[in-house]
Structures are given as structure tokens and as C-alpha cells.
């Protein structure tokens, strides 16, 4: 079989991003929304690594390294926020957390 091209990798990355965005928009559970955010970050990572491979430049992979680090920090802070919110409100559903909504 043929070697996969850059546009194939970018297509996979875009589809992954679209699935993650769909999860953020459609789902109502805070934890699932958070997992979908992780999927979107990983879609960006796939695109960056593919670009770095096909352009012969290692800087994209360094960027992915930083993104993974920041994403780990983001997950820990976000999950702590969700736990703190759950302690106050006893719910993890965004429909019940709409006090700021008009």
C-alpha cells in the first residue's frame, strides 16, 4: 500500500477535532466535556507532528511536547475545579450549573 500523505493525516486530525467539538457542544456531563477537550488537543498534536514530519523541521514536535505538558497541568486544575464545584452543588451536569445564565 501507499505511504500516507500529509493531507490524509490532516484529514484524520480534522475529523478528530470535529468529534471533540461535537462532544463539547452536545454532551451535558462536565467530565465528558472535559474528555472531548482532550480529544481536541490531541487532534492539534497530530496535525503538528504530521506537519513537522513532512516539512523536515523538528520544531513542531517540540511544540507538541509543550502542549502535552500544559494539557497535563490543565487537566489537573480543571478536575480539581470540577470536584470543588461538585462539593458545593452536588451535580456535574451543565444544565444544573446555569446560575449565570439569563
Amino acid at each position: 500500500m501507499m505511504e500516507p500523505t500529509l493531507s490524509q493525516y490532516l484529514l484524520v486530525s480534522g475529523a478528530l477535532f470535529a468529534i471533540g467539538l461535537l462532544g463539547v457542544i452536545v454532551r451535558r456531563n462536565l467530565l465528558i466535556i472535559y474528555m472531548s477537550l482532550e480529544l481536541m488537543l490531541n487532534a492539534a498534536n497530530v496535525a503538528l507532528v504530521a506537519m513537522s514530519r513532512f516539512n523536515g523541521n523538528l520544531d513542531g514536535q517540540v511544540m507538541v511536547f509543550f502542549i502535552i505538558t500544559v494539557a497535563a497541568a490543565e487537566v489537573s486544575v480543571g478536575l480539581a475545579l470540577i470536584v470543588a464545584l461538585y462539593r458545593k452543588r452536588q451535580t456535574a451536569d451543565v444544565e444544573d450549573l446555569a446560575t449565570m445564565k439569563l
Partner: protein
Amino acid sequence: MEGTLFNIFAGLTLLSAFMVVANPFSRNPVTSAMFLVTAMISISGLFVLLGAYFLAAVQILVYAGAVMVLFLFVIMLLDLREAARRKLNLISLAMGIMAVGALFSVYKSSLESTYGEAPQQHEAANTGQAEAKPAKVVGSTRALGQALFSKDNGFILPFEIVSILLLVAMVGVILLSRKEPR
């Protein structure tokens, strides 16, 4: 060989990502977390195909290891099982699917107009000449470390900033998850 592996990993990635978002069999967050693990592992397979060996290892260590343990801890801590089924708002569901579908189709068509026929025409135009393709980089640990820490055009300052960010995140998490002294 590479194409087959690409198809397998890409299909597995998209399938398990879809199962994270919309699992038709179960609404349990633990199943979503497990499918997120398979998605991360197949993404790291894609990284291996792209020659980013170090990042593939880091992906498995950080995502499939640390992040997923954190997710599962929080899911077990919150005990969300009783709120499993709830009526979906059909209008917002349709709107979400439409918006994401429109965005993805724009992305796909722009991708096709950029990479679709142009490279073949380009190749047909200068057959015979050896095309100056950039060398394929391999993201081994040594190469990535040299790119990260090289003296003249390295990323030493961002590296230090990220380590401070990790420290801040650690302190913030401890502060957030502490019970309020009252």
C-alpha cells in the same frame, strides 16, 4: 505496510473518539474514559508512524497513564451513576451536529483545494527533475533533546516557564481541593 497501519490506527482513533462522545450502549463516564485510553494509544501509534518515537512514549505515559488515572479517580469520587440518563435536547443536538458538520466540510474542502490536484500537476510539470523533498525528520529522544536544549535556537526559556507552570498548577490544585477551614 505503512498505509495499512495508518488505516488501522486512524480508524481506531476516530472510532474510539466517537465512542467517547456518543456511546450507543452505555452512558457511563467510565466507559468513555476507557475509550479515551484506546484513542490515546492509537494516536501514539500514529506518532510512531510519523517517526515521533519520543512523543509516542510520552503520549502513553502522560495521557494513558497519568491523565486517565486522574479522570477515573474523579469519576469514582463523584459517583455519577444515578444521573446517567437524561433527555437530550433534540434541537440543540441537531444544531450542534449541523455546526460541526459545516465546520468540518469547510476544513475538508480547503484541504482538498490545497493538497488535492496541485501536487500531481506540480510533479507532472517537472518530471525528470529530482524534486527537492525535505529530509524526513525522526523525533528520537536525542534529536528532540538537542532541538529543545540547543544553545543558539533552543527552547530553554519556554522549558523553564513550563516547569514553573507545573509548580503553579500543583499549588493551585492543592489549594482548590482543600476543605475550607471553618
